[in-house]
């Protein structure tokens, strides 16, 4: 089966991931249409990263099915991965490479020839304002720079679907603006973006659809406007969805 034009970018059915006697993801069913900017939210330990790791093929699900771009995962994982751009956890970067070398490496892994990978790596470095320090190793990068280089690498093969784990974490305002513009441009050109983020303002501004996961279960999902409802901000809606409006308690001694 080839990638269907009308197939959703991401289709998850009854996905479960169990660690010991704890379900990190518990019966998750979710559909993300193609060309959608989707924000996947949840408190710490809710199951966001586990979900994205399963989508990336880094962790096998305990049960359930995943289809990306109309292809089943993990059966067609090679074809799927070829069309995906990843902004993974920053520990997945290679610290002893320079930013340019890492982007070139990723390009070559995705099948670009060496000259093209190098040329695109140089252009991406300039685009992400990392070109002024070509000899700096990723190990010496700040957190924001690491996220920028990861995103640059994710773009090099012009993927149709982006899976991003906290792409804006530690990125300064200028860098975040740049990254947002690039991502919106990708969506305008038909790409699908699935990102997790703690920065609700960013999600509110960028995403047209949002899903909220809590204790492994999807507790809310829909268009941004519907999700916000009567709440002033996405943050209010998020806290309300989790039932934690009055959770803040002060300690006697504090």
């Amino acid at each position: 089966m080839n990638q269907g034009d009308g197939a959703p970018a991401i289709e998850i059915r009854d996905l479960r991931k169990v660690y010991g006697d704890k379900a990190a993801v518990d019966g998750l069913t979710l559909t993300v249409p193609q060309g959608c900017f989707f924000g996947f939210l949840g408190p710490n330990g809710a199951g966001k990263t586990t979900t994205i790791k399963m989508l990336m093929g880094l962790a096998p699900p305990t049960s359930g099915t995943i289809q990306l771009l109309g292809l089943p995962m993990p059966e067609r994982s090679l074809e799927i991965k070829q069309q995906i751009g990843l902004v993974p956890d920053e520990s997945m970067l290679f610290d002893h490479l320079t930013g340019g070398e890492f982007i070139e490496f990723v390009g070559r892994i995705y099948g670009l020839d060496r000259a093209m990978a190098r040329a695109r790596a140089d252009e991406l470095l300039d685009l992400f304002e990392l070109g002024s320090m070509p000899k700096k190793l990723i190990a010496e990068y700040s957190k924001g720079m690491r996220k920028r280089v990861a995103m640059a690498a994710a773009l090099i093969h012009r993927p149709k679907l982006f899976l991003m784990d906290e792409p804006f974490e530690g990125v300064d305002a200028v860098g975040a603006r740049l990254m947002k513009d690039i991502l919106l441009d990708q969506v305008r050109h038909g790409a699908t973006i699935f990102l997790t983020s703690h920065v609700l303002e960013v999600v509110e501004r960028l995403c047209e659809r949002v899903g909220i996961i809590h204790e492994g279960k999807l507790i809310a999902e829909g268009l941004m406007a519907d999700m916000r409802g009567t709440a002033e901000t996405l943050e209010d809606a998020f806290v309300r969805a989790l039932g934690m409006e009055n959770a803040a308690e002060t300690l006697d001694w504090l």
Partner: protein
Amino acid sequence: MTCAGAIVWAQWRTLWHSYPRRGVAWSAAPSLIWYGLWAGAAFSFLRVFSNPAEVPVIRIALPGGLLLIFLYWQVVPLMLATTGSSLDLRKLRAYPIPDGQLFSIEVLLRITAGIEMVLVLTGMTIGAMLNPALAKWSLLATLVYVAFNLLIAVGLRDMLGRLLARKRIRELVFFLVILTAALPQLLLARHGMVSPQLRLLVTRDAWEGWPWTATSNLILGNRFWPSLAVLSAWTVGTLVFSRWQFSRTLAFDSDAANTHDSRASRRSWWIEWFYRLPSAAFKDPLGALIEKEFRFLARSPRFRLVFLMGFTFGLVIWLPMAFVPRGPLGGFFVRNYLTVVCVYSLMLMSEVCFWNAFGFDRSAAQFYFLAPVSFRRVMAGKNLTALFFMLLEIAMVTAVCALLRMPLGARRFAEAYSVAAVVMIFLFSAGNLLSIRQARGVDPGNSIRTGAAGRLQAMLFAIYPVTFAPILLAYLARYAFGSQAALFGVLGLDAVVGLIVYRVALDSAVRTADLTRESMIAALSTGDGPIAN
């Protein structure tokens, strides 16, 4: 093999950037010396194998020699808890790289676990091809034997890697591996040079179904087709085994493997009591620092494995020399067995205790610079923790020696513990300096070491002789004066000098840490390339 090319290129760039520009010679020196020695050995094999007059000797020794090559390639890296270079699958699995390509690269990387044996086999093969009395197809036989070794190494490494990634059973698995690996040595010790069991494995009348016997027959020109069939069958079998193990490793989820029921995770009261011991003995913040070290080290798989090896592996490798003393050194081992094993255990433990004291908990290093605690106290906390675990290790060694009914007595106890104490003082002094000057991040969750910093290894080459010089002086004094009192007298003097050295080294380490904290934290925070080495 586009992906393979990219991975190799990225690794080359990683290595290039890893070496300090001004310290390349230091980093490369130990490797050059080590492999230079093996290259010399390979040349000697070339000379022997190319000489037609040596063919009768070759006929007798070749099967056993090939078995030793197999054992060195497969077992020695495991016994040293190091397995050469391997793909960092955690980072590569997310990319569209065909499993077949990853497997091929992994097989080739197994060469790094046995470069010494590749050198020896090269020397043997060239020699055999130059020898008119040996078969022309020696090259073919050697290549297939190398492939067999590489494939089985992949399978074993993957299987053990997964087992060692599982909490609770990893120490048990490693213990069994050590015992299995030590079996031939123990058989040799019990039955003399070649026991009946070993004869079936290594001599020229050994079973022809072994891969080393088949390779030997091919090189010697005996029974070409049956030998080739046997060797090929072994190689195909190991190919199937290693592919199976590799695909299981690709699908392995270490997070899932290390979770267990929440009921089972309830900590026993005695473990908590153990962790709280330092706080009972020392006031905070020192007590808190040591307690944190206790908790951290006890939970580190790498530390637990090395601790276990200290009183098992050390005993096992020295045991045959103690049971079957040969020559003057054999007698020395019998008389000083406890001392030798204690010192060996300390050397083993030094890697996880003080050569790189901040390597395991690199995030904590940053906290130490921020916290309102003097760095001297932090170092003291680490040293006291190391001291505790080393004393525990020596106590375990003594207990196991007693169980094995090794000759022990008050004099032997006193000698072993005094030597160990002096060695510890000097090792701590050097360790404090190296922990600051050669800090590097280490994954505490990784049971098997995949490599070591070349520069540190080079320094250890220089440090160990200096550290052991005071001990040597003490034994020379006993030899010269023929008196045990002379030994203890010099050891006492060594201890006083050692304490002064320790004080000076600690001051220097604290000063250096203050001056180089930025580069130290940066060095502790760096990771690896696509190939972990």
